[in-house]
């Protein structure tokens, strides 16, 4: 049947099924010529929740990273990256076409969370969403600065950042021309803002979305808006404070 239809017609049919994974799975086993075009949709979004077992399963299913469907993936979610050991480095690197990465770096059972295995693994990445409890700044910004095409950043945290005494500002950084979203309790907001302001290639965000939990968050916002004054077009502020502010200028 697949030989009786032109490939572009088959592509059109499969594209219409992109929201129907069960049908796509059935199509995937119709013939070899259907595998590639159905995998493009089946593996567009991959979630490694409770990552250790999921990555093991992925490696079992696709032992050869060069021949896996990972290159079809555009959105990758990794929950609990402590599961990503160096043995899986090749597997992570095989997701080379990912444009959006969601990482939830929670901390349970005193396991060490590390983003280092992710550094430099996503050359096409445009959007990074990072939710964490506590991470050293060198790990967060080591990841940010290893993503040359990064445009959008979203940080959520519920604890303090860990100041890394060995921290030195990186020599290069992405241009960051999209949106910045900061929703961080404790002193996390100021901590991240300070590091962003240190980035060598500056900040060029067009959209800034922030949630304030302290007056210092407001002051840090002004610093960020000031740094992006030539580019920022949209500003969205959620304010949980009851008071007013001392003079802060852009």
């Amino acid at each position: 049947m697949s030989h009786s239809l032109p490939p572009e017609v088959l592509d059109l049919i499969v594209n219409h099924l992109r929201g129907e994974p069960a049908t796509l799975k059935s199509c995937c086993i119709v013939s070899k010529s259907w595998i590639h075009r159905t995998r493009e949709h089946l593996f567009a979004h991959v979630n490694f929740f409770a990552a250790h077992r999921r990555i093991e399963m992925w490696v079992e299913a696709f032992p050869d990273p060069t021949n896996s469907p990972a290159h079809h993936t555009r959105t990758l979610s990794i929950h609990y990256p402590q599961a990503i050991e160096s043995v899986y480095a090749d597997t992570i690197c095989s997701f080379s076409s990912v444009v959006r990465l969601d990482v939830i770096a929670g901390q349970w059972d005193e396991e060490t969370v590390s983003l280092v295995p992710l550094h430099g693994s996503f050359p096409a990445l445009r959007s990074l969403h990072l939710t964490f409890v506590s991470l050293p700044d060198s790990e967060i910004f080591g990841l940010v600065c290893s993503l040359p095409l990064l445009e959008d950043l979203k940080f959520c945290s519920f604890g303090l950042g860990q100041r890394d005494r060995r921290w030195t500002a990186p020599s290069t950084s992405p241009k960051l021309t999209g949106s910045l979203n900061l929703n961080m309790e404790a002193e996390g907001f100021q901590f991240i803002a300070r590091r962003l302001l240190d980035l060598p290639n500056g900040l060029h965000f067009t959209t800034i979305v922030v949630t304030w939990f302290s007056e210092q968050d407001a002051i840090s916002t002004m610093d960020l808006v000031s740094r992006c004054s030539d580019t920022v077009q949209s500003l969205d502020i959620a304010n949980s404070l009851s008071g007013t502010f001392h003079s802060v200028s852009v």
Partner: protein
Amino acid sequence: MTEFDLSGATKLRDVVFRSTRANVKWINEALHTIKSGNLQRISLELPRRSHFPIGDVIWEKVHREWADLDHLLVQFWASRSLRPKVMYGLRNQEEELRDHLAGLLPELTRRGIIDLVQSPR
């Protein structure tokens, strides 16, 4: 003493202010300082009714802040033809919000120059 200054953001087109408290002085200050000629949209997300103070003295202060905001937004409409948007979270909040708005932003409501929209955030 309490100025929240956005005058340097010269390309600003869209501002959204969300407040979980009744105080809106910070919004008034920010709006006063906007110099961008590109501004196209002002959106507000209001605190819930239960977050408004009950005591007379505090209410008078908060009410004055809302009166200032009402006046300022009318000026934005008159000078820049900007219709402010007020966002609500749940669909069934719309009617409650309409009553709420008539008390908080009476002039905008009377002139019918305010839009209610569902919050995307």
